[in-house]
C-alpha cells in the first residue's frame, strides 16, 4: 500500500454538505463525518446590480429575483439549516413582508413582517431555521416579498447588496 502525505493529494472542490466526509476522532475512535456536521456556510447568493430596485404591489408573495436571489444546497445529515437574508426594504404604506419560496410557491411558516413605519427605509437580516429536510436532497429557496396593497421596495446594491446565506446545522 502506498503512503501519501495529505498535502500530496489532489484538491477537492467545494464540498457537498451530506455526501462528502472528513475524518474525525470521536471518543478515541476515528470516524467519518459529513461536512455538513461541521456547521459552516454551505451556500450564498448576492445581487451586485445597483439599479433598478425591486418593487411590487402584489398582495400575495412573489419572487424578488428568481434568477439571482436564490440559494441551492444539499441538505446536511441533520436535515436542519438556517437560511438568512439581508437587505434594505421599505413600504409606501404599512410594512413590507418577506418569505421563502421554492418551486411550488410559498414555504409554510416563513413570512416575516419587516416592521418599518410607512415610507421609512430599514436594513437588516431575517433568519429562518428550517428542519425536516431530507439529507442529501437538493433544495432551492428564493426570497419573496409583498406589501399590503402599497408599493414594497427591496433596494439593490447602491443601498445594501441583498444577500442570502445558508448555514448547516449539526445534529
Amino acid at each position: 500500500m502506498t503512503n501519501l502525505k495529505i498535502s500530496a493529494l489532489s484538491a477537492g472542490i467545494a464540498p457537498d454538505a451530506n455526501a462528502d466526509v472528513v475524518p474525525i476522532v470521536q471518543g478515541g475512535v476515528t470516524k467519518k463525518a459529513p461536512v455538513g456536521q461541521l456547521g459552516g456556510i454551505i451556500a450564498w447568493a448576492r445581487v451586485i446590480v445597483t439599479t433598478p430596485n425591486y418593487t411590487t404591489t402584489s398582495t400575495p408573495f412573489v419572487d424578488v429575483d428568481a434568477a439571482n436571489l436564490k440559494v441551492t444546497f444539499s441538505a446536511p445529515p441533520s436535515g436542519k439549516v438556517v437560511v438568512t437574508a439581508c437587505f434594505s426594504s421599505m413600504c409606501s404604506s404599512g410594512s413590507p413582508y418577506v418569505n421563502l419560496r421554492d418551486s411550488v410557491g410559498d414555504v409554510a411558516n416563513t413570512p416575516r413582517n419587516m416592521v418599518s413605519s410607512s415610507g421609512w427605509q430599514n436594513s437588516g437580516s431575517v433568519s429562518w431555521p428550517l428542519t425536516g429536510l431530507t439529507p442529501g436532497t437538493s433544495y432551492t429557496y428564493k426570497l419573496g416579498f409583498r406589501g399590503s396593497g402599497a408599493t414594497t421596495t427591496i433596494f439593490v446594491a447602491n443601498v445594501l447588496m441583498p444577500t442570502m446565506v445558508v448555514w448547516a446545522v449539526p445534529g
Partner: protein
Amino acid sequence: MTATVKISALPVATAPDPNADVTLLVQGGTTKKVAIGQLGGLLGYYQSVQGADFTTASITPAYVDVDTTNIKVTFVTPPSGKVLVVYNFAGYGNTSNLLVGVREGLVDVAASGVAFNGGGNFINSSTIHLPITGLTPGSSHTYKMSYASGGGGGNVTIFGSTNAGLGPSMYIWAVPG
C-alpha cells in the same frame, strides 16, 4: 517503513490557516485534501465592550473607523476569495441616514448606502451582511468596521454597551466556492 499513529495521539494544532491548512475529504469516493476555508467556518470576530456610544458627523463617502483600535478582525482569505462580513449593532441618525462599511487601512472595501434611515432619532437594532469577493486566496487582511452619515447634517451614532446592553460586534465568515 512508516509508523502507524492514531489521529487521537497526534499533537493538537493551533487555529488553522483557512487557505494553507488542509484536511482529508472523501469526495465522490476519492480521498482528497480540502482547505479548511472550504468548510465555511468562522474566520474571526470582535465584540465591542466599550460603554460609551460611537458618534460621527463625517459625511459619505468619507467613511471613518468606528473604533480603529478595537473593532477590527484580521483573517487569512480562504480559497474561494470570498468572505462574509456580518455586523450586529444598534444605532440611529438624528438627521441623516446611518451608513456602515468595511475599511482596510484608509481604503473602503464595502459599504451600505443605508443601514438605518435617519430623522426623528428612530433607534434601530439590526444585523447587516456585507459580502466581499475577489480577494487573493491566502492573503491576510485586517478589516475595520466603519460608518458615515448619509448627509443632511447631524450626527450618526452606534450604541456602546451602556445604551445597547452590548456594543457592536463584527464577524467574518469563510465562504466556500
